[in-house]
Every structure is written in structure tokens, then in C-alpha cells.
């Protein structure tokens, strides 16, 4: 079965990203497919490679990147929400004249259509937020 997952909150502040990650891992462990994880609202902040969590805590961003690499997941960050909050990839940074970008490995920036499309293509859509 194909799952779509939406994450509406950033790392650490709310548990949403943690729960979504554990849910995604469980989906994969059962042999199902994660069609896409869509990061919206502050959820876009899960896609920054600049986090430096304490040594004794989980690294939420790296965990997503690694899960994506292992299972070829499609981690999509909403472009409009990302622009508002300062999450850019190289081409976005260039386009908007910014001198740096901060997107992490395994994440890509795209439009809200990707969320609707996930709703259409996936058999189940589950939302995690505040």
C-alpha cells in the first residue's frame, strides 16, 4: 500500500516530525511504500542541513536524509512555505539573490501541487502537525 505523509511542524519544537518519522519507518518495515513526505508550514525547517543538535539527542534532519537515501524516499519541501521561512536550495538562492543555501541531502523543493498529487496517488494520506 502507498502512503502519503504530511509534516506541518519544524524539528524539535513539536513532536510532529518525530512521530511522522517513526510512522514512516514502520510503514517501510511492513513492506509498504512511502509515496512522498511533504513538508509544509514550519515543517519545511526539517530540511535544513545547518542543525547541530546536542550529542545526546536525535538528529532529526539527518534521520530523514538517511531514511530517504536508504529507501529512495521523495522528501518534498513546499517552495512557498520554504521561502517565507528561509529554507533554500542552490537554485532558489541564486534566483532570489541570496549568498547561501541550507537544504539538506535528500530533500527537494517543489510546489503545493506535489501535496495534492500525493493525495491522489497514495492509498492513504496521514497528516502530522501541532
Amino acid at each position, binding site marked *: 500500500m502507498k502512503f502519503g505523509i*504530511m509534516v506541518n511542524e519544524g524539528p524539535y519544537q513539536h513532536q510532529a516530525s518525530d512521530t511522522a518519522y517513526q510512522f514512516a519507518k514502520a510503514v517501510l518495515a511492513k513492506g509498504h511504500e512511502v509515496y512522498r513526505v511533504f513538508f509544509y508550514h514550519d515543517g519545511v525547517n526539517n530540511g535544513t542541513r545547518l542543525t547541530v543538535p546536542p550529542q545526546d539527542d536525535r538528529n532529526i534532519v539527518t534521520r530523514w536524509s538517511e531514511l530517504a537515501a536508504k529507501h529512495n524516499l521523495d522528501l518534498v519541501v513546499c517552495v512557498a512555505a520554504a521561502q517565507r521561512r528561509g529554507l533554500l536550495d542552490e537554485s532558489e538562492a541564486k534566483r532570489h539573490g541570496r549568498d547561501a543555501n541550507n537544504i539538506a541531502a535528500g530533500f527537494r523543493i517543489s510546489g*503545493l501541487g506535489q501535496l495534492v498529487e500525493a493525495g*491522489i496517488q497514495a492509498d492513504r*494520506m496521514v*497528516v502530522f502537525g501541532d
Partner: protein
Amino acid sequence: MSDAGGVVKKFMFVNRKAPYGTVYALESLEVVLISAAFDQDVSLAFLDDGVYELTKGQSTKGLEMKNFSPTYRALEGYDIEKLYVARESLEERGLSEDDLLVDVQVVSCAEMADLMAEQDVVLSF
């Protein structure tokens, strides 16, 4: 734009949060507008503080924020016409249909529950 391959699903966007205090109402509306391009069966539910998203007379100059409430009026032009508002939520707040800036269907809690149960995809923010 749609690459849905002819699939039509029932999408419901559930709005339970007041505008301006948080961005959820605004960013939810942005998804609704995009969804129009996919030829899906879209409905919007407004309950709890979500009914405040639709109040007439919003004026955001003092907050230096964008007043996005007129966009609800534009939904009709995108063929998004199923707007359901919870009667109990209006009543608790002393609001009536006349206080809302768009035409809506006011429904009971039981009717709203039936509508929700029919959906293929429920997005909440």
C-alpha cells in the same frame, strides 16, 4: 497541470483555527487554490475557531499583515463551491450566516460527521 490520470477523489480541507494568530488558515487556503487545478471533488469544512476565518470586515492594516479573507470569495471562480460551516461553532460564537463573507452551507454536527466519513483524503493544518 493535473497528472491525476483521471482519478477523482474526495478531498476535504478541515479548518479549525482562527486567522492571523497562526498562519494555518492562510497556508491552508493556498493548498485549496492549487487543488482546483487537479479536478478533484474538493470541499472545505469550517468548524471551531475555523469559522472565524470567514467573518466579514477583516482589516489588517494595524498588524501590517495581508488580509487574505477576500480570497474566500474567489473560490467560486475556481469551481470550489462546497463550503460547510458547523452550526454549533457559529452558535457558540454568537455568529450567524449573515456575518460570513461567502455563501456557505451551515450543517449540524451529525451532517458534518457524515461528510467527513465520505472523504478519501482529509487534510488538516
